[in-house]
């Protein structure tokens, strides 16, 4: 087998690397071009991947799904009770607002986008909407259940990239309503996140809801307390699951 590198090959490689490095000067245009031509095929691949994965999961996890179904039925009953209580509060709130002559918050302007791919190396996703749809950097991305998925990090003409809340570069303020406390959520990579800087006296417990403004984030997992530290930490199990997600909403305007 011939394994020696000829001068011609080395020269070709050097020219190739220089060509690729020169693409960095117009990275946005180059990436945007490839995203726009591959978008329709990626859309199909993402959908097929999602369907195949769901099908296989249904086959392999039947037992687990049955248990999960039972737990969810109980949770639905609890939530129905809460919902009923919320309806009473909502009526009361409406009456108070009318009495105080306060207007309701304006509707949020949303843009529906399809997920067409995942970042090769990071926990980011690629969407089929870009600057021509009015998307800008920093816009929040949520799913239909008002669960925060991430923020727009890169915008191209027809596509945009989302920095997921679980990404290592992601950090934002969150609240724990049940403990009337707040903290800082940091992505851990993969699909998890860490809740940091929670005051030590905050009475948080596993299963507590974590929100960021009007949007849901996840539930508190394992709690870590250290005597020397003035703060406590906790793991967050985010509500969103990229593998089961096909469409998201980009918040254009509050």
């Amino acid at each position, binding site marked *: 087998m011939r394994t020696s*590198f000829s001068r011609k090959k080395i020269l070709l490689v050097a020219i190739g690397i220089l060509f690729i490095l020169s693409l*960095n000067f117009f990275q946005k245009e180059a990436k945007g071009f490839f995203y726009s031509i591959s978008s329709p*095929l990626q859309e199909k691949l*993402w959908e097929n*991947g999602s369907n195949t994965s769901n099908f296989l999961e249904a086959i392999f996890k039947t037992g687990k799904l049955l248990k999960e179904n039972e737990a969810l039925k109980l949770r639905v009953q609890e939530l129905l009770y809460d919902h009923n209580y919320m309806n009473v509060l909502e009526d009361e709130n409406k009456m108070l607002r009318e009495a105080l002559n306060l207007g309701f918050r304006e509707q949020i302007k949303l843009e529906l986008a399809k997920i067409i791919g995942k970042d090769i190396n990071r926990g980011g996703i690629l969407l089929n909407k870009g600057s021509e749809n009015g998307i800008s950097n920093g816009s929040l991305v949520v799913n239909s259940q008002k669960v925060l998925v991430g923020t727009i990090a890169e915008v191209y003409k027809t596509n945009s990239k989302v920095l997921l809340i679980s990404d290592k570069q992601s950090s934002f303020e969150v609240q724990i309503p049940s403990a009337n406390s707040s903290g800082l959520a940091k992505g851990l990579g993969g699909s998890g996140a860490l809740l940091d800087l929670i005051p030590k006296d905050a009475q948080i417990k596993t299963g507590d809801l974590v929100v960021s403004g009007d949007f849901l984030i996840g539930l508190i997992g394992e709690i870590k307390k250290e005597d020397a530290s003035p703060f406590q930490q906790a793991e967050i199990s985010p509500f969103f699951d990229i593998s089961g997600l096909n469409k998201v909403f980009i918040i254009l305007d509050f």
Partner: protein
Amino acid sequence: MLAKIFIFALSLFFLTLLQSSFLPHFVIFGYAPNFILILIIFIFFLMPSLDLPAAFFGGLFLDIFSSHFFGFYTSILLGTLFFIKLIARKYVQFSFK
């Protein structure tokens, strides 16, 4: 040869799309294997005449679908290829009888 490289580059582009849009649904412990890298190692052994173009185009397409700068994956794949070639030349002897 050029037509061969073109078809090969097109196949690598399609494989990168699969890596980016189909395989994320089948992750193991949060990670999906990098099939482009695996393919390049196979190509080195099975089609050595195409290993350089494979590493070049594979790296370019991975750079496009990642958040890194252009040249990141290309350098990694070309570096890996040269390393394998070096090891193969110095320490591995192939005999075909």
